[in-house]
């Protein structure tokens, strides 16, 4: 082995990445070559210094930092997931003639309920048990930048929006069916009416859904 060969394989040698045979041959050369031994020593000093640096240079986070960061991630993450759900499927726009179909998502055999305006549909919820209701807006044509506001009765909450009775989104609707899943939780037996108001330019339409809590 020569000095040139050591220089070519220097990093792999000091990092211990050579196979045993090559490492042994280079080791024999280093033992007999003062210049190469000097290079190895210098490199070892640098590695020691970097290791020293590594042990001491990262500040310690505050005692509660990890707990707070995890909790905040869960809180923000839940809110973002809800918003993502809600805006999914809303792609284009509607003018007049928006109809609302409501599908009870969680209970098997739930009838599909439509509300052309003459009757108020109703659903049942079990106290403290989450239930997803899919509001399906059927639109004749696409609508850009519509405002959708959901108003909740006392004691009914939207998952991820604790304490909020009214939630509003700016969204767009596609021609055809647009699904808005709402994950609801009833925290009191009171029940009431959920209002879903769709506003676009100067028009608006409100849909009502009666909630009974059992």
């Amino acid at each position, binding site marked *: 082995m020569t000095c040139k060969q050591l220089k070519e394989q220097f990093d792999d040698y000091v990092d211990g990445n050579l196979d045993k045979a090559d490492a042994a041959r280079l080791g024999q050369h280093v033992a007999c070559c003062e210049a190469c031994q000097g290079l190895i020593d210098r490199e070892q000093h640098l590695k020691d210094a970097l290791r020293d640096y590594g042990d001491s*240079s990262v500040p310690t986070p505050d005692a509660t930092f990890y707990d707070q960061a995890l909790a905040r991630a869960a809180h923000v993450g839940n809110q973002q997931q809800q918003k993502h759900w809600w805006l999914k499927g809303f792609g284009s726009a509607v003018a007049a003639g928006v109809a609302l179909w409501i599908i009870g998502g969680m209970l098997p055999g739930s009838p599909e309920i439509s509300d052309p305006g003459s009757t108020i549909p109703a659903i049942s919820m079990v106290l403290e048990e989450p239930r997803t209701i899919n509001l399906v807006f059927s639109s004749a044509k696409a609508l850009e930048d519509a405002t959708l506001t959901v108003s909740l009765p006392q004691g009914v909450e939207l998952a991820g929006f604790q304490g909020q009775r009214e939630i509003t989104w700016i969204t767009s609707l596609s021609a055809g069916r647009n699904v808005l899943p709402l994950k609801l939780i009833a925290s009191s037996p009171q029940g009431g009416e959920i209002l879903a108001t769709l506003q676009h330019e100067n028009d608006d339409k409100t849909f009502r859904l009666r909630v009974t809590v059992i």
Partner: protein
Amino acid sequence: MVSTEHKQASAFDRLMRPHLDRLYRLAFRLTGAKSEAEDLFQDVLVKIYGRMDDLVDIREPGTWLCRVMYNHFIDDRRRFARQRLVSVDSALLPGNSVEALPGDLDPERDARRADNITQLEKALSTLSDDQRHVLLLHDVEGYKFSEIQEVTGDPIGTLKSRLHRARARLRELLEQNGTFF
């Protein structure tokens, strides 16, 4: 009755806890400052929460988590064109390496060590981000090349080349001011 969100938050805590130290260290290595590291750390935790379905499927998620953090850092830097600098003043702030060095009963040796580390930080700050990252991850944090490749997406040959240049540059700078020799 425990809500779905509470169960999800508990599962997230359980999955993430073993990896938080490593992620925090990576955040600090990438940003160089405690407050920025904590912001990066928090942003990435929020992002990972939204990808919990991916996380639960990975047998050894440590390197995957580092990759999410690295990519977020790079994207963020591209958006804001931030240049990370390590100033001499920041190296002397509480919590940074100089004051945090454990000492023994040899104050002169401790002072020499502290000075060497200050010089090392100054030298590190002159490297390009790519060179500094691979040097910090490999030589300081002990990542293997295969792990760094998974984190950064760069080929191992490229990483080795950057490390070689980074070490050469550090040696040159440190020899110029007499540090270590």
